[in-house]
């Protein structure tokens, strides 16, 4: 038996897990695990043919349990997501090595468990991505859920509570999928993809609706779609730094992967399109699109309210997921490409942002946006990375986020969905406002007294951040690199493929060439710089050399406008939307609590004999009558 490349990858990943398990307490464990992630990434690159040409690499691993066949294989879709997974795992793990690891251990953290959880997450994600039938998909899904729980619960305290909330949501989602699986099985008699594909053709509308709701809801929980998003931000934000970078980059995208595989590939966008909601003009696909849009808007504006940098980023993570789903649901060549490309882009800048914030925490000990400021003079490189990251996040040129968002917007306009477009733009507006809050409150303004001795982040942390920043810029400049993979993915899931060039897309419905865009942009910057410096009228002043309200400020009073940021806007927006979801969640829990009390009362104050008598009476009466 020869090992296929996929076998090698899974074995490699399993070996990483074992290394983390057995020698994870050692000194160099972090580096060793990081190198092994690198090895996995190399193995994955050996399969690069998948990302360019398509095709399938099967694993020789397969089981038959209880009459069910389980198999695993990789195609372009899996490869694309696996690339992002392993890339972010490698960089996050690298980031964790050395300085961060030591300070984490010093604070009482269990670094062994951290590495173990990371390795477990990566392995389970690879297993999920490799799933070759619906049953192995579900197995992978649950593995990812529980592995994520482990990573989230690591930090203890608040993190455990957040993780508990997550696992409750995840279990609910998992059970919805399980139920959907059972329904599919009942009509197709098998969980193999081919069999399901045939069975879908002859499925009744009711059943299809039910399945779309079950699967969409189940997968949507992991994506943090409204109204199932409440768990995500706290859970990701409270994960130890590199872990949150990893989770923020890829974890919730597993939901998108599953949606692509099941709803798009198996059920087909066309089938979903035919599911009309009675008495309205919209169908299931529109419903998904609107859910995606609201997922963009609400969490983004919630992000604006956050005073903790990690929470702010995590809330953005939810919102950005909306763009991806929106693109995929629009489902033309450009929209699909935009949605899928956004997965890649989001992973890069989200990881970079979480790392930058973690670096700040590492040096200053806090992520509270009201207790930071002016760090640009102390941590200029981190500032650069954060700046690049937020430009990507806000979707502005010249970074990669611009390309994917442009594609999504363009497709919305092309397909004639102006309302959705408008809503998505509102979301972007919120993004820009809130990322400004992030960079301003951390790096701009005046440096606080207690942070005067702060140094730049250590190189073990800086290196992955810079690599990510470079990737963000390069893929912004040459979006054709990831677009090549995206095009193969589109083919695999049955969406129209986009015509890409190295600099962007080239099609009748719209073209974009980032090389030109950035060229023009930088030319403009260059001209401005030439004018600025040649005039020679600028003067360098110290950060503290400042005045406010006509008064000079003395050096012992530091000024940083950070408290109650965007007060006016916040007043306008209000907290009703987030409050309403919280209320929904609370009322469900209260309902369960109440029912539980009733049931306990039933058992506690039981007149057991009376129960027996009445049951006997009822069943006998039923028999007689």
């Amino acid at each position: 038996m020869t090992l296929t490349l996929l076998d090698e990858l899974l074995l490699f990943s399993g070996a990483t897990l074992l290394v983390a398990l057995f020698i994870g307490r050692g000194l160099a464990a972090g580096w060793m695990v990081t190198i092994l992630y690198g090895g996995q990434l190399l193995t994955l690159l050996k399969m690069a043919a998948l990302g360019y040409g398509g095709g399938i690499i099967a694993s020789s691993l397969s089981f038959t349990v209880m009459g069910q066949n389980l198999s695993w294989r990789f195609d372009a879709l899996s490869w694309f997501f696996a690339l992002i997974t392993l890339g972010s795992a490698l960089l996050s793990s690298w980031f964790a090595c050395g300085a961060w690891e030591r300070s984490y251990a010093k604070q009482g953290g269990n670094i062994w468990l951290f590495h173990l959880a990371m390795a477990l997450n990566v392995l389970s994600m690879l297993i999920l991505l490799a799933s070759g039938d619906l049953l192995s998909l579900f197995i992978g899904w649950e593995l990812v859920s529980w592995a994520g729980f482990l990573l989230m619960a690591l930090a203890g305290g608040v993190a455990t509570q957040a993780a508990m909330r997550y696992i409750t949501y995840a279990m609910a989602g998992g059970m919805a999928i399980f139920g959907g699986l059972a329904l599919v099985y009942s009509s197709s008699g098998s969980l193999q993809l081919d069999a399901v594909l045939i069975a879908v053709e002859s499925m009744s509308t009711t059943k299809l609706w039910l399945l779309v709701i079950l699967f969409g809801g189940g997968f949507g929980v992991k994506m943090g779609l409204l109204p199932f998003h409440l768990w995500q931000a706290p859970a990701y934000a409270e994960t130890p730094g590199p872990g949150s970078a990893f989770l923020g980059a890829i974890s919730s995208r597993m939901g998108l992967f599953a949606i692509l595989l099941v709803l798009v590939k198996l059920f087909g966008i066309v089938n979903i399109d035919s599911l009309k909601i009675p008495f309205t003009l919209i169908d299931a696909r529109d419903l998904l699109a609107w859910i995606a849009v609201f997922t963009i808007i609400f969490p983004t504006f919630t992000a604006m309210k956050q005073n903790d940098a990690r929470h702010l980023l995590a809330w953005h993570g939810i919102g950005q997921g909306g763009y991806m789903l929106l693109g995929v649901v629009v489902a033309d060549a450009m929209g699909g490409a935009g949605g899928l490309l956004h997965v890649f882009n989001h992973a890069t800048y989200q990881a970079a942002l979480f790392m930058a914030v973690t670096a700040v925490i590492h040096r200053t000990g806090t992520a509270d946006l009201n207790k930071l400021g002016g760090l640009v003079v102390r941590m200029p490189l981190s500032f650069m990375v954060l700046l690049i990251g937020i430009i990507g996040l806000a979707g502005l040129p010249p970074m990669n986020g611009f390309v994917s968002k442009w594609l999504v917007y363009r497709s919305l306009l092309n397909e004639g969905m102006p309302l959705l477009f408008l809503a998505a733009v509102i979301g972007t507006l919120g993004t820009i406002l809130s990322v400004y809050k992030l960079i301003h409150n951390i790096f701009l303004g005046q440096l606080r007294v207690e942070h005067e001795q702060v140094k730049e982040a250590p190189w073990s942390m800086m290196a992955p951040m810079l690599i990510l920043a470079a990737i963000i810029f390069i893929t912004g400049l040459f979006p054709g690199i990831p677009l090549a993979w995206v095009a193969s993915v589109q083919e695999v899931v049955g969406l129209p493929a986009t015509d890409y060039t190295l600099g962007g897309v080239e099609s009748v419905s719209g073209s974009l060439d980032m090389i030109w865009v950035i060229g023009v942009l930088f030319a403009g910057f260059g001209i401005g710089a030439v004018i600025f410096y040649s005039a020679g009228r600028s003067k360098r002043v110290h950060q503290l050399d400042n005045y406010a309200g006509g008064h000079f400020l003395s050096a012992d009073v530091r000024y940083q406008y950070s408290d109650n940021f965007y007060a006016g806007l916040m007043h306008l927006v209000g907290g009703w939307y987030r409050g309403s979801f919280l209320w929904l969640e609370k009322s469900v829990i209260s309902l369960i609590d109440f029912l539980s009390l009733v049931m306990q009362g039933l058992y506690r104050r039981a007149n057991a004999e009376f129960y027996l008598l009445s049951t006997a009476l009822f069943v006998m009466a039923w028999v007689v009558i």
Partner: protein
Amino acid sequence: MNGALALTIALPLLGAFLLPVLMRVSVAFGVWIGPAILAYGCWILGDLWLTGSMQPFSVALGGFAPPLGINLYADTLALLFALAAQLLGLIFWPFKLDQDSARRQALMLLLVAASTGLALSGDLFNLYVFYELTAVATFGLVAASGTSAAYAATIRYLILSGIGSVLTLFGIALIYGQTGTLNLAHLAQLAPEQLSNELGLAAFLSLLIGIGVKAELFPVNTWVPEVYATASSRLSAFLAGLVSKLALLIILRLLLLVFHQPEAAQVILILGILGVVSGELAAWRAKEMRRMLAFSSIGQLGVLFIAMALPDGQGMLAVLALALHHLVIKSGLFMLADGWGGALQRLRGSAAASPLAAGLFVLFSLSLVGMPPLPGFWAKFTLITELAGQTEPLYLMGLTVFLLATVVEAAYLFRVAAIIYQSAPQERRPDEIPKAGGLSLATAGLFGAGLIATTLLIAPVGDRLQTIAAQAQDVDLYINTVFPATPGASQ
């Protein structure tokens, strides 16, 4: 060889009768009698299991051919549960030595013998006798913990179980009055003509409610929380793990062999759904480990009843898989609860105190909520695929309730896990943190090892379970085994 089957019931009884005398003569000798007998029983059953050609066989007790005499029916299912009874009896043996240990051990032997009898017996009234023996031995063992609450819990259980036996006897009287026989195989032959009517249904429902008391059927299971909370953990594990399953097995056998009315299945289904709802919801607010496990056990048994209600024994495989899974998990969890009794909030920091126990708890919980690839997932998978295949809306409702209940279950189990893994509060001294350790931890470890082994060997185990289920489902095989076509061929 097959005749030795009777020894698995007779020897524990013999041991129980003689134990008090022997203990008085020599304690050192007496303490080994019980385990030795059970080990021998395990050996007999294991031998039958391994060397037998997997064909069911019937043993006529007293040499009287079945419809007249009583027979033991041993198919792989019955052998499996008989083996489980002896093995669990050995595992949960009350080793504690004090002045009452002779009685306690004798009662334990009786309980094991009765459980074995429940698994093997092929006669309705004989099943009733063993059922009562189980009940009485249980009362004694629960009361043996000697606390006032245990007495109060026992008397409530006793009275409820007493009404249960009244109903059971009533059902037996109806069946006997109608058919004139008590042998299950004989009844299976006569049932289509004589029992597929109102009277048969009424008889079945009487039996269902009567036996349901032990099987934790929904409205007659109010004894469960108190008894499990006051009895010793080892006994609770045995009761929740095995005895409830055996009672369930009897109902299943009756349903499969004798009573084919769809109404019977419907009643079971409705009560099962209510059981799941009530058990899992009540467990949500439980403030104490054993009570939580007791409620969760009610919920799990409800799931088993749902599986049992599937028409034509389609749920056999699911029932078997879920029952065995629950047997292992609940036994293990109750063993952990041994060291972790008391309020859940007090458990903070106990993961650091006993990491192995905490790990086992997480493992058991994961399997219980059905995380793949642990066996619990496969058990649940067999159930939901069967349920989803039904067209009756009631079954789909069962499916929905089952899935929702799993979410609730995961929430409360992992809330406990989170408490366990929290760091201990500052004001508590280290010795105040409850520790799971010693024998019970070792026992739980045994179950954990079994669970992991099953996970690794899931494919062959699944195949074997399918064979067992197919064999147990086969009514004709049952009848032909008890009444062989060639006269005089009964063993």
